[in-house]
């Protein structure tokens, strides 16, 4: 019962947060200088044309009125119409979302693989030069954000040793037989490994740039909790039973050390998704973030609004999921 209550409370605060985001973004973008209507009309347009179009987009009403109209639309799943492309915002945003989701999940997987490997190696070789090197590497990776790693990767693997693609999502000349925008997933399901390779080669650099800081966080935290676990009695017992050190780390210590890392990964994943905005720009990757920057530059108010809200939904959704999973896994919190 108490668990249910805390879940409901958590849902309420999430809704308040989303409402707050909606209000702030709505009012902030309404003070953007530059008339988007004037920008979309040809040079010879008359005053009457401007007025007609302004009325069409509802921009002639007062800002609170516009907000109510927009809100009642959102409740019905209508996020308005993009000013630059004249397509429904929801449709545009959903068409780009798969690209960003695939990139983020790919980055998360890379981060977990690298970070996990570093943590396990560091624990296995405690006190050695390798561990010291891993610590220094972690420090470096954490100090520098994804934007700079992206640029360094472009230089290293796009120019110096050109083995990966550094711009776009897929080679433009390739015919795409896809019915969804989850290119990477769909190419795999359709067993088109040639396409999958091309898409993965495009995605690898931006995903790695996003993954490096998170990998360092995972490596640092997991190594720390592994080391703490390694001193516990039951681990010593396993060791005296004659199990190898690697077996002890993987089978005995890891299951106990992994929970704090998992929660942190959940929270850090939202930061990673936030990072896709500039990384997509840097790698000309056709995702949500790249579209968002274009929307800001073109003063496409309904589109900006839709994208920011979608990001906020993703962020709060991930956080909610992490909290609930943690509460469900941790008996102490379940009764708190």
């Amino acid at each position, binding site marked *: 019962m108490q668990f249910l209550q805390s879940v409901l409370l958590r849902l309420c605060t999430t809704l308040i947060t989303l409402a707050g985001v909606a209000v702030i973004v709505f009012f902030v973008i309404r003070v953007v200088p530059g008339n988007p209507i004037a920008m979309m009309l040809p040079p010879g347009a008359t005053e009457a044309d401007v007025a007609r179009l302004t009325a069409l987009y509802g921009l002639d009403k007062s800002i609170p009125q516009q907000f109510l109209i927009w809100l009642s639309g959102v409740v019905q799943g209508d996020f308005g119409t993009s000013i630059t492309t004249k397509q429904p915002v929801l449709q545009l945003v959903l068409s780009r979302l798969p690209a960003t989701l695939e990139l983020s999940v790919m980055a998360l997987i890379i981060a977990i693989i690298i970070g996990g490997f570093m943590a396990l190696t560091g624990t296995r070789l405690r006190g050695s030069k390798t561990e010291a090197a891993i610590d220094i590497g972690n420090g470096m990776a954490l100090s520098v954000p994804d934007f700079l790693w992206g640029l360094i990767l472009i230089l290293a693997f796009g120019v110096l040793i050109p083995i990966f693609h550094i711009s776009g999502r897929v080679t433009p000349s390739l015919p795409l037989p896809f019915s969804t925008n989850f290119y990477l997933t769909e190419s795999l399901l359709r067993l088109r490994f040639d396409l999958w390779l091309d898409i993965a080669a495009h995605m690898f650099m931006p995903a790695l740039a996003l993954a490096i800081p998170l990998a360092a966080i995972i490596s640092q935290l997991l190594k720390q909790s592994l080391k703490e676990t390694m001193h516990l009695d039951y681990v010593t017992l396993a060791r005296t039973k004659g199990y190898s050190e690697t077996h002890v780390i993987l089978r005995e210590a890891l299951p106990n050390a992994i929970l704090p890392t998992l929660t942190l990964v959940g929270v850090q994943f939202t930061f990673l998704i936030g990072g896709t905005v500039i990384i997509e720009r840097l790698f000309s990757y056709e995702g949500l*973030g790249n579209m968002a920057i274009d929307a800001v530059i073109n003063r496409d108010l309904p589109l900006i609004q839709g994208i920011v809200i979608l990001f906020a939904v993703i962020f709060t959704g991930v956080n909610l999921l992490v909290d609930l999973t943690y509460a469900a896994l941790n008996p102490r919190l379940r009764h708190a």
Partner: protein
Amino acid sequence: MLDGRSAIRRKLPARLVLSATWLTLLTLAAICAPLIAPKDPLAQDLFLGQLPPFWLQGHEPGYLLGTDSLGRDVLSRILYGARLALTVALTAGTITCIIGATMGLLAGFLRGWVDILISRAIDIWMAFPPVLFSILLIAVLGPSLTSIIIAIVVIDWTRFARVIRAEAMTQGAMDYVASAQVAGRTRLSTMVTEILPNVLPTIVVLLTLEMGISIIVEAILSFVNLSISTDDPTWGGMIAEGRASIHQAWWVLVFPLITLFLTVLSFSQLGEGLKDRFDPVLR
């Protein structure tokens, strides 16, 4: 117990020394930019476009690190770009620190409805994608130095508020605070005289880290061409130009990137190094 003096006598860690040295050199270079820059950072010369750095074939004497596609001297532009980067780091970092730390102290120590309000605001802020939010703010405010500073303050105050709130809550539960209250101090005076000195080390560490972050934000904004006017040299602007001409003139990207990398790394290492020194357990 060790006293403070033995901590000072202990050898300074290399990363503190190295990062402080780099930042000092950079600051001096930024201040003296008009004196030491070999060329005018804005002077274009289309006959001298995309000259390579001095050790490569085809370089021109006087252009140590080569030129960009408009024939502007890369070294001079980096030096002038440092002025903007460091100005943003100092002003935006400090203002963010003051506002964020105040919010955190108020929320963590006063608790009650102040805490509810500030925490709710932090939750809402955390739901914004930061890079997109800053780009949006610059679009609203118009590109200028003031806008960059405002955007950084508006977005990053939560970094301080979250951490300082938690620290103030821990400190607020300690006995010394209770005794200050018993002695008849007001809540606000206790906050300033008892809590603030105890969270000050954390504030200093966060401030150092925030300076590095501010420089990145400025670089990102000028990378998407939304920083200050497009003529003035900025590291991010140079990086954007370098990204565009990467296959013809890599040096236009590499040198500002190295400078930016070292500067951000230094601020971060300085912050981490200070954290270790302030930590009473490690001392």
